[in-house]
């Protein structure tokens, strides 16, 4: 138990709306939360931060009645609060936007918004008129520009995220919990989301905001609580702390390089040699414009752009994961077909997809199996597996990348996000891929692991790998890349070299070169109707 008095902040004179005392949750063999005290004052936006595995999600699940606490008490607005089911939490006025979407894909947007209390006529018939009116108003409020009759399956990830938020706001609550709501949103949409959150606060709702992005916390939140290994490390007023201090508290040791960004490697080798990868007029998804660029060994190139600008599609089309409509790909000067991932892999090109859980890993299988999946010939003879060789080579890669796993037989499902991502990288290094394409390599990963993955990518570039990175975070790209290609609506809107890196410039290219329309630099562009298409 962490019983020493800790600095507290952000408290207002009135009693806290939500108060947790000594809350403990054990799972077989592990204590996920150990005597956590946690208080959220009325009228505040309270950030909850911690590395993966710190206990944030467990805390949220206790609050919303997914499972009961083993010890400790919870008070909501002064009264004892012991939710047994999610319904209890809902009745108590707690609204949650989970990281995983809980939408019904084949129902309409409107039906999803009001699923649990569809307006009726005469007690039986669905009142479509009222349903669509109320949905339209709600969609407008969250800045989601879609027809309420659209089936959810046609929405993109960012739109689904906004829809989830709309769902949480569709009925009055007094505590709104947002679990990593910005991970899939573009700067514009994040700006809009922050406005919504502030207006919700103004309406008297208390907000708990979980995020890995410290800059968001410093922009939005009033107070912050840091969890580490299931303990509350500190609760502070945001005004009285710094990002460095928060990182320090989260990681438990100095890891400021996460924020410093580190020095990128020297500019790559001579540009006379044939580029590792040359892409010409790559077209996909009926996009009439072609994407063209060169990627050389030893350099890290970033692909920036808004959601729907074709970043992911570009990577997937090069890799042969999705159909191409046209264009040429050259590998070290030679034209290659690369129509299937199998061919791409044979040409030494690999893709780390944005959904490591769905597409990068076989979650219910061991670390060992996942790592060797890209090249089983290395660990077999005449089609027969050589388990000892497999274990040795897997262990070597695990050690090399400093991936923290309990054993090689541990199921990947049980690893933290950062370690999962390391396994995905390791499996391609095991295959000895020369061209690495990474789609959002650090999404949903805590700061410590993020810095490690950045370091790793720099090291790999120094070793001569050609690296292409897609990221929604412009600061990540500027910290990591030698140059950045900006995509806009399926075409290259421009290229920015390291010496000219400027967040504002990259963002304006990504928005289609609007010169004066943009107000704020950096991530927080002027919020407006999102013009992205999924």
């Amino acid at each position, binding site marked *: 138990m962490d019983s020493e008095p800790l600095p507290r902040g952000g408290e207002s004179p009135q009693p806290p709306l939500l108060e947790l005392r000594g809350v403990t949750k054990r799972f077989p063999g592990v204590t996920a939360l150990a005597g956590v005290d946690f208080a959220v004052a009325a009228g505040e936006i309270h950030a909850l931060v911690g590395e993966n595995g710190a206990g944030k999600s467990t805390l949220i699940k206790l609050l919303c009645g997914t499972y009961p606490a083993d010890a400790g008490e919870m008070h909501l607005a002064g009264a004892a609060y012991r939710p047994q089911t999610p319904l209890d939490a809902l009745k108590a006025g707690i609204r949650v936007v989970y990281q995983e979407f809980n939408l019904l894909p084949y129902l309409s947007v409107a039906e999803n918004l009001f699923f649990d209390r569809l307006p009726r006529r005469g007690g039986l018939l669905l009142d479509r008129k009222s349903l669509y009116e109320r949905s339209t108003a709600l969609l407008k409020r969250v800045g989601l520009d879609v027809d309420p009759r659209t089936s959810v399956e046609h929405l993109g990830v960012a739109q689904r995220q906004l829809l989830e938020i709309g769902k949480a706001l569709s009925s009055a609550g007094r505590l709104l919990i947002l679990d990593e709501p910005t991970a899939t949103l573009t700067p514009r949409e994040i700006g809009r989301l922050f406005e919504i959150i502030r207006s919700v606060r103004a309406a008297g709702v208390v907000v708990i905001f979980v995020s890995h992005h410290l800059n968001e916390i410093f922009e939005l939140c009033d107070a912050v609580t840091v969890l580490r290994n299931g303990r509350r490390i500190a609760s502070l007023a945001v005004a009285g702390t710094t990002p460095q201090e928060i990182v320090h508290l989260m990681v438990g040791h100095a890891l400021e390089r996460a924020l410093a960004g580190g020095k990128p490697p020297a500019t790559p080798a001579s540009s006379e040699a044939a580029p590792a990868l040359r892409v010409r007029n790559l077209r996909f998804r009926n996009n009439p414009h072609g994407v063209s660029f060169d990627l050389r060994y030893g350099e890290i190139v970033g692909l920036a752009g808004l959601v729907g600008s074709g970043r992911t599609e570009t990577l997937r089309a090069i890799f042969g994961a999705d159909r191409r409509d046209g264009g040429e790909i050259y590998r070290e000067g030679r034209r290659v077909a690369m129509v299937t991932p199998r061919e791409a892999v044979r040409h030494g090109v690999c893709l780390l997809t944005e959904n490591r859980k769905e597409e990068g890993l076989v979650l219910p299988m061991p670390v060992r199996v996942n790592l060797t999946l890209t090249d089983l010939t290395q660990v077999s003879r005449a089609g*027969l597996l050589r388990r000892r060789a497999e274990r040795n080579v897997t262990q070597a890669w695990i050690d090399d990348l400093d991936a923290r796993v309990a054993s090689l037989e541990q199921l990947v499902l049980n*690893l933290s996000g950062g370690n999962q991502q390391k396994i995905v990288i390791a499996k391609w290094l095991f295959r000895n891929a020369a061209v690495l394409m990474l789609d959002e390599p650090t999404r949903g990963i805590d700061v410590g692991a993020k810095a490690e993955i950045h370091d790793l990518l720099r090291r790999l570039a120094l070793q001569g790998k050609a690296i292409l990175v897609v990221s929604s975070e412009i600061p990540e790209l500027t910290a990591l890349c030698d140059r950045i290609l900006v995509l806009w609506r399926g075409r290259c809107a421009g290229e920015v070299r390291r010496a000219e890196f400027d967040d504002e410039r990259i963002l304006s290219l990504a928005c289609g070169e609007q010169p004066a329309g943009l107000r704020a630099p950096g991530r927080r562009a002027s919020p407006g109707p999102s013009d992205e298409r999924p």
Partner: protein
Amino acid sequence: MNDRDRPTGGQTAQAIEAAPGTEDLESKRARAGFARRLLREAGIGVALLAMIAVFASAAPHFTDQSNITNVLTQITINLIMATGMTFVILIGGIDLSVGSVLAFAAMVAGLVLKSQGLPVPAAITLAVLTSIAVGMACGFANGFIASFWGVPSFIVTLGMLNVARGAALEVTNARTLFEFPNEFNNFGTATLFGAPAIFLVALALVLIGWWILTQTVFGRLIYAIGNNEEAVRLSGHNTFFYKVAAFVISGLTVGIGAIIYMARLTIASPILGSGFELNAIAAVIIGGTSLNGGRGSLIGTFLGACLIGVLADGLILMGVGDFVRQIITGGVIILAVIIDSYRAKLAERTR
């Protein structure tokens, strides 16, 4: 999607923090994993042993040599079909056509067997090869259609169920074939080391299948595809090949099953094998293989097929009527699935 720090994540982080110097924690985990795996397989094994114990004391003549031979003979066909079915279910598919394909393969093989002018050994060899070829061809059609056009294998094989049954009837215009060579018919009742020869064939198939699934690259990819096909495809594998191969293997076992069934019955009839697909699926599911694919084993399937066979035999010896027997068998299948889902939940919580 994003990572969540579920309790599992917490567990990982803590276990790792504690890792240096706490060697025993890791070995404890490894042991727990082994125990859990043992439990999974042993669960059905214990159920089987308990059932044998009950019948041994309650059912007259259950432990007689002749009854044991009878049980082994009875489960042979189902065991062979369930072996191929395990491959299909492991990749997340299902093969409903095995019973009909068995009849079709048997009819074609029967015609070959009865063809005039061939010396008996040649006719038998040719019949075996034909039966296997028919089975594999049907399996290939199932797998190709399902994988190439992305049609659920449930639908494709439901279609094949009808196609193959119709073809079986068409081959001889619904006539039954009999009077096969004695050498052929004798195999159906032959014994080797005191066990029915046909059961030993089934056992050999189980062992070969188990070896393929656990020891080869092919088996590794079957499991991986069953768990996450897209991840395997994006790792640079031709998932199409493996998915079709699983259905071809199912067809192969059906072809072997057809020959053995003919030898046992000494006839080939176009109405053979109806409902066999459900017995095979039941054996696989009772054996703990997940219908969603990716999880399970042939040892489980073997035990599942034994359990179904022992249950039927024991109930007959106890004088339980045919109708009641069906009710009980159905209940056991449902019970097995309930236990499996409970076990899966338990495993999830323990992680």
